[in-house]
């Protein structure tokens, strides 16, 4: 790497003339593809009119790239967003130029006209020699053993070690995803591994027995053992010049692997050199503990010879267990049969307890039989429906019989490491997520960890997921688990349709742009968006999300406004006219929460002014001003007292007519007495004065 860095400036100076030519070519190509060219990271012009079908990946289409930055030709893989990508691996591999790996030059989300939405576009250096094998059922010129071992062996070791150092696995090592980087077809590299989840598109022949049992989305296991296995299959195919099991169906191949072991199933009757047999047996071992490690493979490539690995098959029962018309002698086979015949599996456990009896008498394993009884007792205590209790029992017994197999539960089968990916794929494909939720909620996943030969602690994210599943309010629940477990997954909110929002800073600009296309009566925060913000901006948004869930519409509206305002303020994002206008139109519940009509009218007049500034914090400060709120409340209390006293007085005046009239009558009589008395005094006085 250091050497490459030192050489870089020299190459730049020396190739200034070449750069000019390249720039001309770049301009020409831009002119040609002007209408539908997309710029990624300011330097890479992806030509949407120039597809490269020979470089397509199952989850991404390949297009030509024109750039003045990279000396070598590039191509782009455009992800359609139907599957989550491996962002962590993508970021880690960006800029890595290592033998054996297809150099990932850069990546970025841009608007893609063909899909009319923002997509993740990954720029790779273009492999000039094309694919090693165009498809899994085609043939090619076999690579000689000595070249395969001495040349490519070391390249493959370096490539896998590079991934290991970066704490990632490839999980897409297969012969149709290997390329010749040069036109002379002398330099093989592993192809893309980031445009789809781990091993999602791996054919069954390239996967271990356990990984084959898992759903495509549930194969994410962060160990090198699976890459070593896939590499072993790739080496076999490179040696043979074809896929030896191209004509076999998946079910047949899986059965063959289980019965005869992977090596025998894949090699069959083909002749393999004695030297290579040792390597392939080691790499294709069905026991992960016996499977070769990178170090063992490196030692073998270095010339050290090892004894071939022979995989031991588990204990065979004295008598068979009849299930679904078939006879079974091995517990792993029983576990697989139960998992694939889920609805009838419970008949083995309940009723005559055929399974327990078989384990006790046929297999003569009382420890295992007692464990079955314990599982039955434990699951009975679960407060859930009978269906769930039965499913949990079957899943746990499957795990008990085959601890290294994935978690199998009704329709889903996945390794706990792949829980997040499994969930995201299920949601993206709009499939039923309830089995996945049940696996976590009813302790099935915990049992998988407890049941491993080497005891493993239950990861914190599983505990968190369980807690989030319990809280189904906005900002939590399933959506929150989705984003907590898939931190780089773009927000799936329909409010952000067309935008690739995988970063909290992109949320408000996307909402602002989308404001004109969305019904303005709809809230700009939905379950997905609240969960996404809660996940990526946890500490600052707990109160706001709690407020959104308040029953009172004014509180929840204030919570929504506050959430968006905090984002704008913390992210330092400028004017958001579209979003401010949208949010401003939804503020009726907050305005109505003020008691004073004058105050409400004043706020209604003020809002358009602030909307024109595009500032959500200002809008929030206007509408949720504490002083104004307190003043309104105290004035309201005083007015209420005034109203009640007026009401009382009114009631008295209205209802006490008789009393009032009686009082008035008495007062009138008193007045008349006084008048009479005064007249008497005056007249007597006048008469007296006249006499005197």
């Amino acid at each position, binding site marked *: 790497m250091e050497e490459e860095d030192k050489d870089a400036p020299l190459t730049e100076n020396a190739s200034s003339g070449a750069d000019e030519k390249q720039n001309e070519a770049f301009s020409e190509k831009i002119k040609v593809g002007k209408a539908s060219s997309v710029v990624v990271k300011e330097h890479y012009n992806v030509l949407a009119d120039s597809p490269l079908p020979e470089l397509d990946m199952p989850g991404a289409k390949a297009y030509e790239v024109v750039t003045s930055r990279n000396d070598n030709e590039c191509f782009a893989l455009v992800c359609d967003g139907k599957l989550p990508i491996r962002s962590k691996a993508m970021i880690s591999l960006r800029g890595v130029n290592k033998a054996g790996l297809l150099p990932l030059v850069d990546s970025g989300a841009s608007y893609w006209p063909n899909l009319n939405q923002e997509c993740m576009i990954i720029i790779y250096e273009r492999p000039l020699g094309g694919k090693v094998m165009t498809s899994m059922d085609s043939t090619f010129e076999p690579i000689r053993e000595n070249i395969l071992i001495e040349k490519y062996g070391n390249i493959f070791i370096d490539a896998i070690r590079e991934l290991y150092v970066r704490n990632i696995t490839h999980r897409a090592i297969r012969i149709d995803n290997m390329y010749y980087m040069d036109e002379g077809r002398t330099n093989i590299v592993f192809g893309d591994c980031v445009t789809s989840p781990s091993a999602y598109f791996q054919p069954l022949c390239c996967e271990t027995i356990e990984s084959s049992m898992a759903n495509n989305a549930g194969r994410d296991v962060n160990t090198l053992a699976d890459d070593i296995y896939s590499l072993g299959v790739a080496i076999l195919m490179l040696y043979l010049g074809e896929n030896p099991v191209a004509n076999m169906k998946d079910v047949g191949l899986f059965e063959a692997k289980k019965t005869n072991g992977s090596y025998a199933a894949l090699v069959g009757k083909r002749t393999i050199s004695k030297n290579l047999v040792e390597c392939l047996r080691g790499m294709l071992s069905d026991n992960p503990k016996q499977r070769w490690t990178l170090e063992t493979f490196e030692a073998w490539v270095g010339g050290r010879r090892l004894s071939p690995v022979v995989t031991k098959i588990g204990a065979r029962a004295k008598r068979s267990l009849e299930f679904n018309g078939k006879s079974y002698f091995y517990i792993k086979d029983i576990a697989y049969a139960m998992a694939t015949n889920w609805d009838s599996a419970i008949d083995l456990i309940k009723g005559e307890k055929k399974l327990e009896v078989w384990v006790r008498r046929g297999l003569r394993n009382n420890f295992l039989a007692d464990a079955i009884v314990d599982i039955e007792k434990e699951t009975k205590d679960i407060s859930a429906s009978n269906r769930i209790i039965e499913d949990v029992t079957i899943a746990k017994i499957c795990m008990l019989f085959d601890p290294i197999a994935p978690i199998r539960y009704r329709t889903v089968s996945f390794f706990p490491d792949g829980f997040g990916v499994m969930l995201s794929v299920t949601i993206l494909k709009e499939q039923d997520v309830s089995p996945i939720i049940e696996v976590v909620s009813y302790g099935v996943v915990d049992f998988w960890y407890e049941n491993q030969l080497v005891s493993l602690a239950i990861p914190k994210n599983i505990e968190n997921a369980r807690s989030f599943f319990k809280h189904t309010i906005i900002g939590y629940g399933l959506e929150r688990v989705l984003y907590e477990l898939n931190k780089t997954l773009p927000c799936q909110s329909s409010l952000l349709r067309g935008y690739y929002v995988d970063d909290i800073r992109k949320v408000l600009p996307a909402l602002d742009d989308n404001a004109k296309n969305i019904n303005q009566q709809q809230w700009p925060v939905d379950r997905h968006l609240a969960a996404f913000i809660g996940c990526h901006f946890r500490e600052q948004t707990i109160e706001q999300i709690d407020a959104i869930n308040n029953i009172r519409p004014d509180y929840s509206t204030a919570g929504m406004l506050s959430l968006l305002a905090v984002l704008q303020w913390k992210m330092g994002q400028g004017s958001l006219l579209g979003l401010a206008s949208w949010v401003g139109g939804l503020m009726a519940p907050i305005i109505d929460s003020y008691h004073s009509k004058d105050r409400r009218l004043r706020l209604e007049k003020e809002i358009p002014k602030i909307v024109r500034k595009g500032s959500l914090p200002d809008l929030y400060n206007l509408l949720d001003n504490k002083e104004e709120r307190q003043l309104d409340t105290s004035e309201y209390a005083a007015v209420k007292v*005034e109203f009640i006293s007026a009401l009382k007085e009114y009631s008295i*005046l209205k209802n006490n007519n008789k009393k009032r009239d009686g*009082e008035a009558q008495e007062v009138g009589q008193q007045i008349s007495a006084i008048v009479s008395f005064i007249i008497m005094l005056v007249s007597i006085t006048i008469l007296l004065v006249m006499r005197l």
Partner: protein
Amino acid sequence: MAKQQKGKKEQKQYYKKRDATVVASRFLLILLLFPLSFILLPTMLFLSFSMLPTWISILFSRNRRQYRYCWLCVGGLNLAGSAHYIFQMWFGEHTIEAAANLLTSVVPLVATFGAAAFGWLIFFSIPSIVVVYMQVLSQHRISHLKNVQKKLVEEWGSGITETK
């Protein structure tokens, strides 16, 4: 119980004392009026007849709370009507004959009884006027309160009408 009995005893003693005082005061009044009635006999004779409406109103208003000021109205004006003739006797001939002449003449009787009638008129008319006046005042206050309430509801919403 003991306290109640003690209270009743005290009450009885109080009523006994009060009755004794009333009897004593009435006795003193008779003692004073009796010699005076001999001196002012013509006046007394005249007043006893000319103040007849007053005596009737006193009898009428007894035990009638709503007419308790009636005798004052009638009596005041009745006395005012009689005053001219009393002064006529006091400053002229103060005899039984003079009193009898006045009582048998039409004009003095019309004057004294007319004045008493005017007293009755005042007694019945002024309270009605006061009642009507009070009703008008009350209606005015009611409409004012209604306006105040309406304005408060308009400004602060119907929430203020909730008494809780």
